[in-house]
């Protein structure tokens, strides 16, 4: 009996160690490249390695060359957010309240850009609006692309929260007390949809900041976003500059991802 117990203990131990090693290995496989890239961004000469010394000069250079792309990325991201909020939240409300086949069809159409390649959406936009020169050349053109691409994420996450709090009945409750639709929207619908609106907002901003496919097709030399700048620097700058650029992107995007995780967790707790 003690022998069998001992054997079982040893076996459990081995299994645990094996699993731990495997996890660490996978993590390393994913994290090491990121780490290397970040390290490259602050190394004087990547080919001579870390002993060549650490420096912030590449980051400074990135800032000098590409600060414009970072600014325009944020401008575009927040403009996209504003539009998806203004259109997406009322749309989610309307789709949920109306229900029925038409609502489901509209929902599907809104969701389509998730599945359609960004390049195809960009091409469609170019075919349709390419002739409007001033619009085509402005950053608003990229905003339009981003709105098309991110809208489903806003609408879906808001609708999911609306469904869990049974917004339809709450809406009827508000109506029975005499509140007109716009009053119900501000007093009842929006406050009770906050978790979904927050989650959707973070998703939209994150996706817009990192969007490449669509943007690459839609941008002009004067309307570059951060990911386009990244591609540009990979193609034409020394490796250290490109890596420093990655580092900058990381620093910007990680807080957003953490916030997203945090909100998701809070929603789980409630």
């Amino acid at each position: 009996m003690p022998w069998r117990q001992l054997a079982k203990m040893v076996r459990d131990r081995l299994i645990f160690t094996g699993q731990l090693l495997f996890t660490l290995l996978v993590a390393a496989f994913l994290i090491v490249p990121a780490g290397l890239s970040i390290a490259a961004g602050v190394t004087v000469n990547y080919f001579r390695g870390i002993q060549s010394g650490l420096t912030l000069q590449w980051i400074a250079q990135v800032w000098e060359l590409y600060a414009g792309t970072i600014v325009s990325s944020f401008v575009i991201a927040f403009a996209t957010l504003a539009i998806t909020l203004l259109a997406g939240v009322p749309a989610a409300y309307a789709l949920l309240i109306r229900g029925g086949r038409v609502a489901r069809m509209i929902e599907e159409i809104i969701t389509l850009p998730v599945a359609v390649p960004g390049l195809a959406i960009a091409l469609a936009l170019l075919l349709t609006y390419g002739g409007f020169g001033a619009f085509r050349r402005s950053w608003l053109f990229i905003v339009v692309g981003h709105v098309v691409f991110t809208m489903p994420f806003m609408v879906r996450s808001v609708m999911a929260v609306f469904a869990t709090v049974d917004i339809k009945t709450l809406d009827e409750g508000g109506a029975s007390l005499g509140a007109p639709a716009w009053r119900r929207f501000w007093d009842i619908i929006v406050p009770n949809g906050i978790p979904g609106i927050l989650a959707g907002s973070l998703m939209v901003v994150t996706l817009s900041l990192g969007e490449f496919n669509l943007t690459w097709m839609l941008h002009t030399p004067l309307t570059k976003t951060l990911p386009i700048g990244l591609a540009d620097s990979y193609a034409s700058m020394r490796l250290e500059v490109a890596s420093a650029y990655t580092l900058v992107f990381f620093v910007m995007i990680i807080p957003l991802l953490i916030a997203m995780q945090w909100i998701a967790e809070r929603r789980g707790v409630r």
Partner: protein
Amino acid sequence: MTVPAGHGVAVRIESCGKTFAGGTRVLEPATLEIASGETLVLLGPSGCGKTTMLRIIAGLEQPDAGGRIMFDGNDMTRVPIERRNVGMVFQSYALFPNMSVADNIGYGLKIRGVPRAKRAERIGELVQLTGIDGLEDRRIDQLSGGQRQRVALARAVAVRPGVLLLDEPLTALDAALRERLRGDLNQLLRSLGITTIYVTHDQAEAMELGDRIVVMSKGRIAQIGSPREIYFEPANRFVAEFIGAANILEAPVENGQLMLPGGRLPVDKPANQARATVMIRPETIDIVNADAASLAGTVETVRFAGDRMRITIREAAVNMLAVEVPNTIAVEAGDRIGLSVAPEAIRLLPAECQ
């Protein structure tokens, strides 16, 4: 504590039917009048159309073409719910989770532009009336089911609605609480004296709360009447079986007597028919000496229910006969007993009915 005055509007439902997209008819066109201050209960099993009827009155659903809803003679059919001045209690209560108890109760007043001080006064009145004083600052998720139910009720009557609509307001609660709140609710509705339409599938609730009951089945009105009429004089077999316990007997009639396997029963108003369907309530059957009785049977089971005994009897009728007797009577399974029923307690049902 002041009891709000006003007795509400008279409601008239005029040939209101409802067919959903896709062609399912959930409500046959029905006409119904509810007097000012009356409590009317819509009673029936799930899917009978009672909630649809309530939602049409509320303005949450539109009746099919031709149907009209009148409040005090004014056509409200095209008026949306927010301008009908109704108070509604939902089955799930629909309390706003983003507001405190007080804000929930005061929301309708706020919408109507009642100033803050007036609002606070009315909220104070209502928490007293519904027995939830002290909970004003609580959030909704900090309340028990019974407390939520009271908040929902307070919120609905806060605006002094013309008609109060309640959609299964006690169904979400457990049995003991339901029974207690039913009593409270009854008292509250009586003291408010407001026109009330109450939807439930629970016949005990309907009996206790309703001035009149509308029994519904499969989208149709099966019977309208006072609780007594519904209980003692059911219009058809469905009502008889849905309300309380009932023995339904189908038997040939001879010389004004119902011919049963275990003997005969005199019928009060013998119709000119060869066969009859009758209903007998279990508590109207008395146990007598088997030798003297015109109807006899054998006791199959005896269940002691505390305040009374429930007995089933075989061989008296084609089916098992259910009898309720005082808890003092001594009978055992297998006993041969006689049965007597007052002729007026035997209710003739229309022959072709379901």
